[in-house]
């Protein structure tokens, strides 16, 4: 292993210590309608955003949006549409045929339309990627202005795996033509409660 020789070379070659800058969050403060900005950005990145007044209408709304989904994994008590239950011991490869996953996101970010979900929210890490379609639910009060605020909010978490998801999977690798639905979920709906 080259560990020692690398560290020694770095020590020799590095410049004199430069200070770590402080981040002054006042520079980024903006008086914006967080829900409106978030919805605008979800749509900009190819997703769909739905504002729901009553949590009781959640399943009706999801059924309306995804009428053909039959193999559904629900990771939230708010929805009773789950037809397949999973646990930590489920083989993730078995999720290949899932039509729809419904997941409650812990927080969202207005500036880029991203929703944060952690391992605890999905049981199996691969779920939000392997599912054909994805529904993420977020509470209005959990929408943050920018990434600085989002990282502050998740700073005390148990760090295993977590992901910011902004829109459905996409690519523009063939002649820069945007195609929604690359290797991950082909559609994303964010339901805001």
């Amino acid at each position, binding site marked *: 292993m*080259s560990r020692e*020789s*690398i*560290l020694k*070379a*770095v020590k020799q*070659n*590095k*410049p004199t210590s*430069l*200070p*770590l*800058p402080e*981040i002054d969050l006042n*520079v*980024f*403060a*903006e008086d914006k309608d967080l829900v409106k900005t978030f919805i605008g950005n979800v749509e900009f*990145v190819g997703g769909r955003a739905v504002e729901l007044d009553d949590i009781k209408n959640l399943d009706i709304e999801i059924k309306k949006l995804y009428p053909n989904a039959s193999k559904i994994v629900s990771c939230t008590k708010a929805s009773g549409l789950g037809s397949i239950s999973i646990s*930590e011991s489920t083989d*993730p*490869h078995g999720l*290949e045929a899932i039509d729809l996953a419904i997941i409650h996101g812990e927080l969202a970010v207005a*500036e*880029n*339309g991203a929703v944060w979900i952690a391992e605890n929210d999905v049981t*199996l*890490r*691969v779920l939000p*990627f*392997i599912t054909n379609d994805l529904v993420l639910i977020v509470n209005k009060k959990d929408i943050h202005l*920018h*990434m600085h605020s*989002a*990282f502050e909010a998740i*700073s005390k978490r148990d*760090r*295993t*795996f*977590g*992901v*910011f*998801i*902004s829109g*459905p*999977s*996409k*690519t*523009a*690798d*063939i*002649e*820069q*033509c945007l*195609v929604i*639905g*690359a*290797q*991950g*979920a082909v559609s994303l709906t964010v339901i805001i409660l």
Partner: protein
Amino acid sequence: MAHADEAAIFNKDEAKVNWHDKALWFVRQKRDKSAHNVQGWETLRDLASAIKANVLSNLDDYLIQFEENAKKNGVTVHWAADAEEHNKIVHSILQKTNVKKVVKSKSMLTEECHLNPYLEANGIEVVDTDLGERIVQLAEEPPSHIVLPAIHKTKEEVDVLFQEHLGTKPSNGDPQYLTNEARKHLRDKFLKADAAITGVNFAVAETGGFVVCTNEGNADMGAHLAKVHIACMGMEKLIPQEKHLGVFLRLLARSATGQPITTYSSHFNKPAKGTEMHIVIVDNGRTEQLSREDFRASLHCIRCGACMNTCPIYRRSGGHSYKATIPGPIGSILSPGKDLTKHSSLPFASTLCGSCSDVCPVKINIHEQLYKWRQIITKDVPQPVVKKTTLKMAGRVLASSKMYGIAGKSARFMLKHMPKFIIYSKLNAWGKARDLPEVKNSNFDEWYKNRQKK
């Protein structure tokens, strides 16, 4: 071959060059729009630059801290001095875990180390899973851009390639159809893979975690299905604390494609139950670059590709003309540090317009470094005789106002009176594919003197 000669090959297909030029400029415009939407954008750039400078000046401490925390998280950490050691380490992990099939997401580092051919020679199947990377892998070519690997290929070329390798139907290059077929093909590969290799966008010293950014979801499809995940990172990918991700994730995608953030920003800290996670920290010339005061800031790079999209030379010469893993302006200041002779023409593949430095999210003084490499190269690497003598003459002419006046006069005289076939002959490179300016009767000096007389 020098960059200019390679670029001439790319320029044979004029329609394609024009498309390439416009497509990348469009991405640059999207970057501008996106950046202007962010309050405090310039502050973000300043912060990113200062954080990276702090990292480089304490890199050994951060590396040790990162290793310690990653180990606590149950991750195995490896150290590689060069490409060869990196490849050996990856192969030995795969051997120990009895892996035959690997899926790989985009990692410029593994391109730099030529990992694929190494593993293939050892009987391991490696499938690149980013669509653009898969396209160039099937075409047996290197990527021509670090964010848009297949930007040099037309959709018709992709169509033919997929017919041959994936058995698709002819579609006149329908991107929707081709992407969908690739999705099916890659799903099968993900499900059968024993191990996943990913790159690392940012590694956090404070937590021992790392972040991988993709739009397609391919890194996650690989890493969460396979029983072994190997993340390969250049040592400069470190940042001190998790809160600094807030700065870098706001800059990266906006600078790269104009998106406010990539579709997926995945934060890996601990392996999932029943799986293994490895991190390979790679030097491969980075400590040497760290020692060069004038060029060390090139290690700030977060691989967004903004300097390529904005560069008038890159856009009209194509990534392959650089003959380096990282093409474009940033590649032209990194590559000479690795092999000065081989890459000696790259710092000259620039107009020194400075646009690359203006868009760089971590404020690398790219164009100044290009100029500095030129000073070193002209001293250390033998230059073509024509260039040497021409520049020597130019030096003499420019040093004497009398000679400069004569030269200007005779040039204007010749431009005005010489037959077109001579002016636009092969000897005059400035007449190639462009009209020379119309000659006025006097130069500025004469005009100014006349004006003073009145």
